């Protein structure tokens, strides 16, 4: 590491006023990023904050709609990842983007192999690869196929390739997501060595411990805007979490006093899936909304998926009204009158080309069995009822659901599960990517369902929202339950504190 004061040296890369618009949204709004040679710069923010959009603008994968990028004193406008690579900006992704069927050396040198006449100089290539890898502290046989090595080594090979080809700026997009502690240490050793060589490294991750371990500075994004750019030494984890999650809406939130919950409906004991979520106990009562809070990757969605049987649990018991039940796949859960609205509705939820009506009816029909079709008139009636009840705005029930706006798609998904009349409703990020008006409606709906006696489990990254509808909040960190807040304890501040887990506040 170094102690360079950022303002003294000219930056290696200075991106200014970067803006990017997608139809209907502003993905990046006047964003600035200053990278100095020899620093590790963390880029932080929750999902949808604009981190990947910013990276894609820098690497030329997206064309930016505004702003200037100055690299090493000269303005650049890369039009493709290959072009930005030539300019000196290399990127390594979470999913290793190398070719597992080629050898390590072939991967390192693909496209710029040493040649002898018309043929590859294989021996020379392997020798050079060995030298390059040795400089990263790896003593491996470069003639072995890449797939023979662990993800961490593949990651270092990817970094070596990016550095060899580019050599000014290295962007690491969640490089540690699938690594264990020793492997992270190996990777950090490599990163320190590269900064000592004068590279500027951008580090994108959700693991705050790692940010504080390796980074010199951090830029925090939220909703496509810069929240702050700070020197890591001068801030605490809690400051960073607060900046990432934001809480300017606090004043707007009204907490209703709620009636005490009914009797216990479902009870989970020691439910766990190795590598996904640590064992947890959880009881949800009738007429109760349990909120799941935590940063991305803390195990929110994992908890929902495990409970619903999307992934089968390794261990643990599920009790429904005191009776043990076994839930190993979503069909089992549906049979017990569970329902799950998944986080990524485009991938896991809607069937884009089917009509809104079919999308609403599909879960109910599936539970009835395909041999017993629901009469057409009944289908129409159910669909119309929920469209009216949830105020789904559409031209016709026959239109393909993909043509609806995000908020209306989400409401149609909710309608799908409400039509099955569930006892236990799990909502994973119910307000992701929808506009403010629809947001409020969904919150009101959750409240209504609770008042009607349904048991709900809601995972969300939006603290204000959790505060608004939860009767209880479970806080997750690093795939573990680390806290529970009840009644008046539920405030954005307390949730942030529990997530950041600052011992002095405990």
């Amino acid at each position, binding site marked *: 590491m170094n102690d360079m004061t950022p303002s003294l040296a000219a930056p290696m890369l200075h991106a200014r006023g970067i803006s990017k618009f997608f139809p209907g949204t502003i993905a990046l709004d006047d964003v600035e990023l200053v990278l100095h040679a020899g620093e590790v710069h963390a880029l932080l923010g929750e999902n949808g904050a604009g981190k990947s959009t910013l990276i894609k603008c820098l690497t030329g994968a997206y064309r930016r709609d505004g702003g200037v990028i100055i690299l090493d004193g000269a303005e650049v406008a890369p039009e493709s990842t290959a072009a930005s690579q030539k300019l000196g900006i290399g990127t390594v992704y979470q999913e290793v*983007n190398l070719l597992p069927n*080629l050898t390590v050396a072939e991967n390192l040198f693909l496209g710029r192999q040493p040649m002898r006449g018309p043929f590859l100089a294989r021996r020379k290539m392997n020798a050079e690869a060995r030298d390059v890898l040795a400089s990263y502290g790896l003593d491996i046989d470069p*003639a072995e196929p890449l797939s023979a090595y662990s993800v961490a080594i593949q990651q270092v090979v990817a970094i070596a390739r990016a550095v060899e080809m580019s050599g000014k700026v290295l962007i690491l997009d969640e490089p540690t997501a699938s690594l264990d502690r020793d492997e992270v240490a190996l990777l950090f050793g490599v990163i320190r060595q590269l900064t000592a060589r004068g590279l500027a490294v951008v580090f994108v991750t959700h693991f705050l411990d790692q940010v504080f371990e390796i980074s010199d500075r951090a830029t925090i994004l939220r909703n496509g805007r810069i929240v702050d750019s700070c020197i890591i030494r001068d801030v605490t984890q809690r400051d960073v979490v607060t900046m990432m999650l934001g809480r300017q809406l606090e004043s707007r939130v009204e907490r209703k006093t709620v009636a005490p919950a009914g009797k216990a409906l479902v009870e989970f004991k020691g439910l766990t899936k190795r590598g996904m979520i640590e064992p947890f106990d959880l009881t949800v009562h009738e007429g109760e909304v349990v909120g799941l809070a935590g940063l991305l990757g803390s195990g929110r969605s994992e908890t929902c998926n495990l409970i619903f049987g999307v992934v089968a649990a390794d261990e643990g018991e599920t009790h429904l009204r005191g009776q043990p039940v076994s839930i190993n796949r979503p069909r089992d859960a549906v049979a017990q009158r569970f329902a799950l609205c998944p986080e990524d509705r485009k991938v896991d939820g809607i069937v884009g080309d089917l009509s809104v009506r079919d999308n609403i009816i599909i879960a109910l029909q599936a539970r009835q069995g395909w041999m017993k079709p629901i009469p057409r008139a009944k289908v129409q009636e159910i669909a119309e009822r929920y469209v009216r009840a949830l105020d789904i705005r559409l031209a016709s029930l026959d239109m393909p659901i993909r043509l609806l706006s995000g908020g209306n798609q989400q409401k149609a998904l909710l309608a799908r599960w409400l039509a099955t009349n569930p006892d236990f409703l799990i909502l994973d990020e119910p307000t992701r990517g929808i506009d403010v008006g629809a947001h409020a409606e969904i919150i009101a709906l959750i409240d209504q369902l609770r008042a009607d006696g349904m048991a709900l489990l809601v995972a969300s990254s939006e603290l204000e929202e959790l505060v608004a509808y939860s009767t209880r909040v479970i806080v997750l960190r*690093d795939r573990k339950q680390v806290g529970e807040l009840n009644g008046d304890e539920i405030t954005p501040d307390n949730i942030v504190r529990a997530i950041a887990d600052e011992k002095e506040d405990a």
Partner: protein
Amino acid sequence: MIRATHLPLLVTLGTFVLAYALCGYAYPAMLSTRVIANLLTDNAFIGIAAVGMTFVILSGGIDLSIGSIIAFTGVFLAVILRDTSLHPLVAFAIVLALTTCFGAAMGATIHYLEMPPFIVTLAGMFLARGAAYVLSTESVPITHEFYDTLQGLYWKVDGARFRLIGGVMVLTFIAGILIAHRTRFGQNVYALGGGEQAAKLMGVPVAQTTIGIYALSGGLAGLSGIVFSLYTSAGYSLATVGVELDAIAAVVIGGTLLTGGYGFVAGTFFGILIMGLIQTYIVFDGTLSSWWTKIVIGGLLFAFILLQKGLMWATQAKAGQAKRKKATGFAAHS
């Protein structure tokens, strides 16, 4: 050094040695040089086409048009040599250029229109077969001194005649091996087969490579057609139906993964020899119906597919174990 990726090749080699030993045990005469010479001659045209098919399959694609291209080439040569006074060498050059361009056009369609190779080359198959019919629906004999000269060329060893076309096949295989394993183009073919998205991100010229692969396959099918016309002294639009499937079988028996990325051109050579050997055995036996060839090849194909699946499961299970270990290690962390 033995690596996991070499295993299918070794199994193919082992199968060939075993099959040949069995044949030699049953009919010692099959061990003669003459049988080997005939094996090369009789399988020359399909071997040449299979080299092109190996490149296509290595890249993760498929080419269904080669049987039709071979037939078209034969008819084209026969008609041109009958109706014009062009020298056969000139005709060869024309037909090679035609078939290479045809292949390149299919490659371009596959890449730029993002169409599956199966459909595009299926269209190519009908087009080429149709073109052959348009030229002539009947078998057209080829009579030309130059053809006689070429057909008369051989290299005599122990009374066995190694003919020109067998030599052309061996040279094609050598060239194929060099291109696949020793050139940037070859590396790019493997890269495409390993994953098009990653290859693109790593800067592989995907368009150029795809077009090149199908051009090579088309051109080699043209060369195969020339060899086939030397072999049969005729051009017939109904000939070589289904040869593309034999070529695919040879490639798979040769240890190349149908999903692309893994395999060797040399494996295809032994795949061809194994298939030829089965045919020869049935000829020697005399009592078996020639359809037994198909049955044995079918069984072999199935065995090789199972072998590949087994290998894949084995490596995935290993990777899965490593991953689980990692995941738990991670959960314990921080």
